């Protein structure tokens, strides 16, 4: 019997359906389907969990600007673009501030000694604290979400860039010194490319943390935006509305990571022989071991 089973196995693997299911994409698809089935089952047994189709129908109506709940057309894009603007401005400033701070920290032992404990405090501070504080400082408006994003993203970028600066091989520094390579060329061709990997890790952390931060800040400190809209449905106890917006948050991060950050990272690392294999395994949450250890996981 065992011989027959052994002989059958390769034949089973040649089956195109089985092969598709065992592929990376098949495994991903299976996880989505399993999630939807579990959600549907939960919705059948728990009153307060809306069904998947109801939720997706809500998302579609919200996006296509239907008459849902008396909402006027274009409501989704108005809120989404408001959030996207705050997110982009905050992240850009946080990224620049974090990069400059990171290069300074990585290059100077004195600055590291001076600021590393402060930076640890900032890293440990949850985004919700910044959301509360900035709302108390600036009141309801665009300032609270933008400052929350800057304050949440910058420390993560700074820590990663500082680690990148310190990781530059001393041998390459010595080589540059022996050849008398000018300082600006060293910065452009040695330091920045060496830091790129850490910069991307910082940017990906920054994006995820900033997106959470902007939503939290809008929840408490804005009168429009995605976070405010989610709160509207939450306050009205409309579960599918709240859950629908949660799915929109997640979908945005998925798209941003898959369509922008991963291709950029792949391009920046095309010099690495194993780059293709590294990036292949990455999607949302597909951080490598080094990135996960930076997150403390």
């Amino acid at each position, binding site marked *: 019997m065992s011989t027959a089973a052994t002989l059958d196995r390769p034949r089973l693997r040649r089956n195109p359906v089985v092969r598709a299911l065992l592929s990376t994409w098949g495994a991903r698809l299976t996880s989505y389907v399993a999630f939807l089935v579990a959600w549907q089952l939960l919705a059948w047994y728990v009153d307060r969990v809306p069904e998947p189709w109801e939720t997706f129908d809500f998302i579609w109506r919200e996006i296509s600007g239907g008459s849902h709940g008396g909402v006027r057309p274009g409501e989704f894009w108005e809120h989404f673009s408001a959030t996207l603007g705050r997110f982009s401005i905050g992240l850009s400033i946080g990224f620049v501030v974090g990069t400059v701070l990171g290069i300074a920290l990585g290059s100077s032992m004195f600055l590291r000694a001076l600021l590393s404990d402060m930076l640890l405090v900032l890293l440990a501070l949850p985004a919700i604290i910044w959301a509360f504080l900035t709302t108390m400082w600036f009141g309801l408006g665009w300032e609270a979400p933008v400052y929350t994003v800057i304050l949440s993203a910058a420390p993560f970028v700074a820590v990663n860039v500082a680690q990148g600066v310190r990781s530059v091989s001393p041998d390459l520094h010595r080589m540059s*010194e022996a050849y008398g*390579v000018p300082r600006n060329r060293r910065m452009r061709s040695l330091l920045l490319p060496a830091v790129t990997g850490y910069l991307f890790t910082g940017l990906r952390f920054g994006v995820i943390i900033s997106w959470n931060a902007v939503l939290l800040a809008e929840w408490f400190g804005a009168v429009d935006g995605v976070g405010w809209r989610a709160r509207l449905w939450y306050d009205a106890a409309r579960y599918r509305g709240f859950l629908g917006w949660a799915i929109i948050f997640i979908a945005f991060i998925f798209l941003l990571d898959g369509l922008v950050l991963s291709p950029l990272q792949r391009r920046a690392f095309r*010099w690495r022989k194993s780059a293709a294999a590294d990036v292949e395994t990455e999607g949302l949450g597909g951080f490598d071991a080094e990135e996960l250890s930076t997150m403390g996981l």
Partner: protein
Amino acid sequence: MATLQITNLTKSFPAHSKGGQPTRAIQGISFEMSGQVFVSLVGPSGCGKSTLLNIVSGVDTPSSGTVAVTQDSQKAKLGYVFQDPRLLPWRTVMQNMLYVTDLSEEEGRVNARRYLEMVGLDHAEDMFPGQLSGGMQQRVGIARAFSVDPDLLLMDEPFSHLDAITARSLREELQSMWNATKKTVLFVTHDVMEAVQLSDRIITLAHGGTVFDDVAVDLPFPRKASDPDFATHQAEILARFETMEAERAEKAG
């Protein structure tokens, strides 16, 4: 014509622990080399060969003594080939060549191609170092050093990390490049055979960082290890070194 003048050079490294003795890597070395010569610095591991090269290149500073590298009374331009290739992994071969050049981009490319051709890598200019074998990477390192048109070329055991066959072929390439350019070369190695094959002059350092021997190698190029004169030179240098080591062991008790 480049001149390297080393006078009474000493280098000590601080003690590892409190109350310990500082380590003396070099003790009062003096020698001079000038013109179109290929000089090898031979000696056992830890005798201060690489430290000396680092001081000559300006990467390290001496504890006492002086090092002067001059080119017609001006400060000379240096080229450096390291034990490992030390290429920027995120830059292509051509970009690595351009990284160290003083020339404009266009001139630099023409110049780099000339030297890459000499080491047989003109087809690899758009490749990244990670796509090349260790031997090919070291060839790029050599081409890079020659491409800056150095007045003095420093080479720190450039073939020690390569397999014997690749090292042999690179030695032959280096020899033909040197014949074509006649640069002033200071070449560090622990391999006496390599030194005899490539050099006009061999300076042997002893343990403790002192000059033990300084001999001219008067053999025609290209040199073959199978040539009896080659073997005689090699044997003489080794015999003198072994005698010195035996005396040192006797003194040490």
